[in-house]
């Protein structure tokens, strides 16, 4: 897998084109709501890629990633509110706290396998949510608000959505590059070995726990940065909005939807999931009849049933079944299918 040249020129070109497109896109959009929609996609994509490092490559399915998200959000916000620390530094601090937490929790939890591990991560995240809800120090259920008047680049608070767009795009690029570097390095090789052949890996002297902890720590650091970004963007956090299990599940959904263990699968998954989510709510949510939930859920089930390895899996599947077919009709079929 990592045998070709260091950088495949065609891939690199594609990636650069994608990045250039993403960088130009907001300049063509004047409507902040649509820009906000793109920011939501990038946020979900960033979390999905970060989750994928431990959940996809290393195969350790965490359904408790909200805990890292929340740690990031709370750490940078608390440091900002109490010490006046710039969120740019708070970002790193949040990541560091998340790594410490990941090490402390991961070490015992990695003894568990499969569903037991997944349930343990839910339990850890729920416990943390309860503790924060009852913590006076963190203002408990009341939550923390960032002051509106302190705006500007230093405070990472902006009136326009554009700076948020570029910040989260940058964070996504960094996250993808980290994932890419891991994928290509010997660490990534060990991750896959842990996922596919744990016994063989152990027999070859790979320390399973050590590499699982590396995967979790990297993932936790990046997820926490996503959490800090959330706090800067929404300017209000409470346990329900940054530590809830529904966030953990959404983070995993993004990766599953696009394709677990693939570099850009979560990005595609985020585009699809957020589109379905925002669309169904915008178009049907105002009726109060639950139609938006029905549509959202039906899409999820359809993807799960017809494309169990995510949309990337479906795409390569289609390719196999339509040999010689041009790319365009296939794309058309696909988007027609997932368009809400």
């Amino acid at each position: 897998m990592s045998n070709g040249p260091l950088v495949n020129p065609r891939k690199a070109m594609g990636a650069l084109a994608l990045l250039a497109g993403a960088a130009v896109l907001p300049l063509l959009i004047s409507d902040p709501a649509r820009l906000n929609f793109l920011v939501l996609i990038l946020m979900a994509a960033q979390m999905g890629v970060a989750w994928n490092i431990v959940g996809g490559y290393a195969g350790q399915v965490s359904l408790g990633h909200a805990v890292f998200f929340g740690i990031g959000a709370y750490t940078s916000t608390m440091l900002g509110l109490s010490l006046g620390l710039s969120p740019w530094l708070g970002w790193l601090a949040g990541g560091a706290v998340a790594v410490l937490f990941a090490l402390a929790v991961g070490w015992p939890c990695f003894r568990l396998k499969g569903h037991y591990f997944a349930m343990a991560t839910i339990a850890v995240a729920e416990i943390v949510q309860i503790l924060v809800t009852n913590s006076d120090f963190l203002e408990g259920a009341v939550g923390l608000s960032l002051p509106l008047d302190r705006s500007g680049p230093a405070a990472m608070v902006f009136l326009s959505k554009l700076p948020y767009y570029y910040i989260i795009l940058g964070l996504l690029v960094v996250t993808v590059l980290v994932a890419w570097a891991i994928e290509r390095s010997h660490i990534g090789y060990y991750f896959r070995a842990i996922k596919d052949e744990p016994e063989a890996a152990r027999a070859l002297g790979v320390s399973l726990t050590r590499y699982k902890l590396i995967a979790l720590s990297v993932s936790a650091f990046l997820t926490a940065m996503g959490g800090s970004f959330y706090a800067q963007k929404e300017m209000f956090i409470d346990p329900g909005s940054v530590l809830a299990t529904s966030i953990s599940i959404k983070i995993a959904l993004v990766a599953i939807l696009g394709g677990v263990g693939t570099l850009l699968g979560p990005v595609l998954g985020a585009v699809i999931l957020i589109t379905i989510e925002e669309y169904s709510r915008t178009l049907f949510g105002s009726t109060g009849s639950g139609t938006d939930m029905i549509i959202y859920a039906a899409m999820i089930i359809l993807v799960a049933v017809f494309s169990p390895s995510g949309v990337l899996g479906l795409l390569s599947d289609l390719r196999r079944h339509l040999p010689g077919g041009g790319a365009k009709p296939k794309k058309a079929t696909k988007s027609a299918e997932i368009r809400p």
Partner: protein
Amino acid sequence: MRFTVAKAMGRGATRRQTIKRMMGAAALLATTALSGLTLGAGSARAEDEIRIGVIYPLTGAAASTGVELKAAAELAASIANGEIAAPQGLVAGAGMPRMKGAKIKLIFGDHQGNPQVGATEAERLITSEKVVALTGAYFSNVTATASQVAERYGVPFLNGESSSATLTQRNFKWFFRTTPHDDLFVTNFFTFLGDMEKKTGKDLRSIGLFNENTLWGNETTKLQIKLSDERKFKIAEKILYPAKTTQMTSEVQRLKAANPAVIMQSSYLGDAILSMKTYKELGFSPSMLLANDAGFNDSEFLKTLGKDGEYIISREVWALDQAERNPLIKSVNELMFAKSGVNFNGNSARAFTAVAVLADAIDRAGATTPDAIRKALQETDIPASGLILPWKGVKFDATGQNELGQGIIVQVQDGKYVTVWPFDVATKDIVYPMPAWDKR
């Protein structure tokens, strides 16, 4: 078949193509999505439309309340638009004379009980739907984020039913609130208890706090502790319970063991029902159950519990029996009943009033620019006789808080909420103590 392909996926050659294809698909999707989001905004819009964004919980655990609020807001809009004749005296911008017959159009957003979704909806309503003002969002924490978006864009946000005191302590320029907040409500509780002590000669000094564990319950608890210190009450037990629980046995057992004279409870609907069932199951009947509105005043509370909901006392901002003192209450309530098949309650009456106050302000502004609406809101001075709420009127102070709002205290008697305090507006005598379960 699909599965084997899937497993092979992401390896070597297939991968390059997949990435290309994926880029294409993603780009296509994003484009469709973006063009699609314009759908709502792009559709033909009459020049004479006044678009108001309304954000409520229309799915999720509080959906039943949200749907009720929606009906009330729609009623207010119909009255403002002259589709339904306005009852004599009601201030609701009826007919919008100064807007030259322009019609109000409410654009609803669903926040699902989630602060982030609330902010996203506010953003969409302001920028895509071009609403000139916002109202909502029932949940205090969602109102916090949604009004922050409105503040950033300089769009008036009139909140009608969120009672967290901190909302108007943020020095916002564009935020207004018609309902009194928890500070006043909690103060009312203690004043009421003082009055009750004088009236009955009983000692009501020991209190059990029983509040749900979110923003609302937490702030209420803090205020209750502060006031009970100030007024020399004693807190015998303090419980913050997790909302959406499966059982309340441990909570009620603790209350039972502490046996306070008065229980002050803050719960949303599901928990309110479950707690009443648990009180009965464990045979616990405090001499007074003083509820903090919300679940206890929801239309479904009595519909669901029937006789088991009798004798609870709750703070309120509205009661049908106030129609005896204010005929508007009766006539507007009849309109509501004709429209949605349910009577008003404190929440829906406040949602109605928020839209009515907003319509009145827009009409007085004679324009839909944010500054004009804000100025008109600041100049709002609605007399008590123009409202369906037992307030002294609507007039906003510098923080945007209505300073003329006031609360009443009601009790469930014979399946109805009747006003029992303040004594001068009461229609029935209070039943005290609450009869034990086996003596009903």
